[in-house]
């Protein structure tokens, strides 16, 4: 059936291929602190979806618990959302994906939600290569519970109360790479130019796309010295490549000098251009990604950008060979073997 396209309140606003304006991608008003990095990520998600002309209702938003996990309420108001329990979003997203392989699944989590209580589920979602985007809005602190250290908090950083944190932070990108994640990116909520194309690339990726976004908590962890602060990231953010996303069936206009650029053809027909800043970077090598992260780290820099892609990996439905029809759309005829078959089974039990 066809639907009247709404949202023409501002005829002057630019429209995408669906005739939607950015307003059709907005959500409820954010209740986060003014300046919270998470809000910029919500904005980037809206823009990416708008520019790619994604049907909002074909997106499912999932999250755990935390300020970061609240954000799905603040974007894509026409999408269904599920704010699950703390640290368990990956399981809910996996189940949702099992039920309907046709939707776009955007999972939003925080560093507490992912690296502490959620570590087990994160690891196994990566391993299953569930076809979804997993965004960790990483501010190195427990925001919603008011400033305790998380597992990604810098060593030595002093939380509001109590002692300085004595443990090494967990590097989620490194873990994801080690576990065989098929798309890994590291970026910064303050850098739209980088964030948006990365989200687009993640949307085009078939399989588990992990995006670790440094997203400063202005209230509890934006102090000078915090590696998760605006100042720090603005100063030390570095990237081994600049990401340029070319949507399906669009002309590749720009010219690139030999060796300075890497192209990744995604399965939906889009092409990701990586303008190499670091010439020896290899987007298809886990080892090189891990090595570069360590090298940059050694120089006191934070490596950002898309770190690794395996565009040919099999996502979970392919591995399981499930039907193309969303399972939830199957009905009695396909599902119920009927009474005759049952009587045959009875016979085998006599």
């Amino acid at each position, binding site marked *: *059936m066809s*639907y009247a*396209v*709404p949202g023409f309140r501002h005829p002057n606003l630019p429209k995408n291929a669906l005739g939607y304006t950015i307003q059709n991608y907005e959500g*409820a008003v954010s209740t986060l602190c003014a300046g919270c990095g998470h809000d910029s990520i919500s904005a980037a998600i809206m823009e990416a979806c708008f520019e790619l002309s994604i*049907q*909002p*209702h*074909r997106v*499912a938003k*999932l999250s755990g618990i935390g300020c970061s996990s609240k954000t*799905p*309420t603040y974007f894509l*108001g*026409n*999408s*269904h*959302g*599920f*704010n*699950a*329990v703390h640290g368990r979003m*990956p*399981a*809910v*997203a*996996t*189940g*949702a*994906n*099992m*039920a*309907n392989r046709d*939707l776009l699944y955007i999972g939003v989590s925080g560093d507490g939600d992912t690296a502490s209580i959620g570590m*087990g*589920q994160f*690891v*196994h979602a990566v391993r*299953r290569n569930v076809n979804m985007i997993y965004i960790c809005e990483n501010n190195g602190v427990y925001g919603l519970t008011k400033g305790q250290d998380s597992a990604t908090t810098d060593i030595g950083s002093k939380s509001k109360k109590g002692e300085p944190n004595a443990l090494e932070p967990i590097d989620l990108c490194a873990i994801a790479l080690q576990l065989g994640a098929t798309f890994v990116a590291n970026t910064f909520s303050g850098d739209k130019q980088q964030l948006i194309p990365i989200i687009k690339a993640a949307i085009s990726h078939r399989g588990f796309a992990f995006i670790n976004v440094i997203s400063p908590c202005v209230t509890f962890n934006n102090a000078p010295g915090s590696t998760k602060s605006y100042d720090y990231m603005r100063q030390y953010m570095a990237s081994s490549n600049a990401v340029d996303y070319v949507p399906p069936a669009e002309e590749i206009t720009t010219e690139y000098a030999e060796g300075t650029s890497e192209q990744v053809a995604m399965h939906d027909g889009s092409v990701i251009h990586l303008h190499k800043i670091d010439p020896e970077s290899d987007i298809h090598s886990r080892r090189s990604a891990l090595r570069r992260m360590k090298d940059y780290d050694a120089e006191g820099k934070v490596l950002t950008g898309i770190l690794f892609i395996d565009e040919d990996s099999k996502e979970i439905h392919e591995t*399981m*060979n*499930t039907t193309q*029809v969303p*399972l*939830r*759309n*199957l*009905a*009695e005829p*396909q*599902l*119920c*073997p*009927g*009474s005759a*078959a*049952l009587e045959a089974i*009875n016979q085998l*039990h*006599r």
Partner: protein
Amino acid sequence: MKRDIVTNLFVIKFANVNGTGSASANTLFSRAVFRMGVPISPKNIFPSNIQGLPTWYEMRINENGFLGRRGGIEVAVGMNPQSMARDIAEVEKGGYFIYDSTKPLDKNLLRDDIDFIGIPFMEHCREKYPDERQRQLFRNVMYIGSVAALLNVEIDVIKQLIHEQFKGKASLVAPNVEALEMGYAVAREMYDCPIAYRVERRDKVGNQILMTGNRACGLGAVYGGATVASWYPITPSTSVIDSFARYCRQFRTDPETGVKNYAIVQAEDELAAIGMVIGAAWNGARAFTATSGPGISLMNEFLGLAYFAEVPAVVIDVQRVGPSTGMPTRTQQSDVLTCAFASHGDTKHVLLFPSTPKECFELTATAFDLAERLQTPVIVMSDLDLGMNDNLCAPLAWDDARTYDRGKVLTAEQLEAMQQRFGRYLDTDGDGIPYRTLPGTHPTKGSFFTRGTSKDEYAVYTEAGEKYVANMERLLKKWKTASTIVPKPAIRKPGKPCTVGVVYYGTSEAATLEALFHLNDLHGISLDSLGIKAFPFSTEIEGFIDEHDYVFVVEQNRDAQMRTLLINEFDFVPDKLVPVLHFDGSPITARFIRHVIRDWILQTTTTPRRRARR
């Protein structure tokens, strides 16, 4: 020893070492008796271990169709030296003990009130089978042959079963049949067969089937239209998923392409398993998981979310002995309270209580209808005895006209036609059940945010007390509605009016009904009975208890958990409900129930022991 001949009314028990392949041999035997038209109820009593410990296979043969556990052994087949002393001691006076006489029997174990039948199984096998493993396997088949001879079981029936078992692998048939015949022959050489306990062909089985409850649950999930299963292995629930997988491979997989109309995910733990079920159900698929006590404990948080956010979910809890890891290979009905009140805050969950494989099949299929209709978790409360043992029951039946009740889910058309704003938690119909929408249905209408936090009728987050209260009270209304649509109890009344009743559920059924028969038969005590099939309780249950002076509540747990629920839901005077509790991990016996009820009644006429407080 001089004895009367007993036909088709005795208990035989095989004692073996686990991991030696004895299980399949013993099953061969039980199937043979079953094929001879004689009702049986075999119980596998196995250790939580893979190899080398004692394991037993106790089978009751009863042509009157009493199939609860009875207690007492007439014929023991002792193939395990470790447990021999205990196995001999267990035999009822006048019974038989069959053993492998390759090694002489310890004199101290001898009893003169039973007969010892020694047959040198191992000796024969040593000669015939050089290979160690083979020797072990064929020894099992051999003793089956001997026991068949001794008990007068038709050997051809067993041969037939062997053919069926090894269909395709013809090479295996011959040696097995050979071992069987060897045992049969040797026994007849050494002893005059049959002995006093005998099996004779009857026509008492009719079209009944012999199946495990777990297999039936798995089938129920297939017929009930489950497309997503997520689970984590745990005894005794694992075979529920094995069954689901097996029948999905058979019925839901394209033979050419191998394309699947289902998805089974082995989760990393039970938290993830129930999480996936909730995610899938939220997204419109019928989804379920199977687990046991420890898994239920781990699912607590998610069950509370599903209750409060109103997401369907089906859980099959194959109960084992708790608390904690308890006895993983023994049976109990002790997860009732945990499941009824799972998770923090004010929660109540729908429970179903199957008593037979047929009910496992039906209630599992029904669980999906209820879960989607009520938008809440539904837990099927099976147990190890029902789930892992072959149980005799009426054949499974499915009405091809039956369609799935997908509950109140709005279609794109309905949303398009909708004038007013969609309210996910509005009690539009006054039954406490709101309408839901599925992701991806309509571009601009019907989207909402599912959350474990409190919300208003439009699913918008709120901290307004009155909104919260209204929602919690609607959930109570929904609970009331649930009590009207869940399966009704099974009520049985002997002709004459009774002032006393018995309430039971799940695997206590067979033993309870047998006990009632004998109470009437032997003591002239007759009672009405009610088998609970579901929580919340329907009014029939309230009525039944009201119309009796008092009722016994038969359970397989320590704390009378179902009794607690009954009193709590209906505000009964506790004294009216007399607990009958068995919880040692073995299935409850008819004898036990009969004795408790008899003693109670003879001792108290109709005034209950504990005085009601005024």
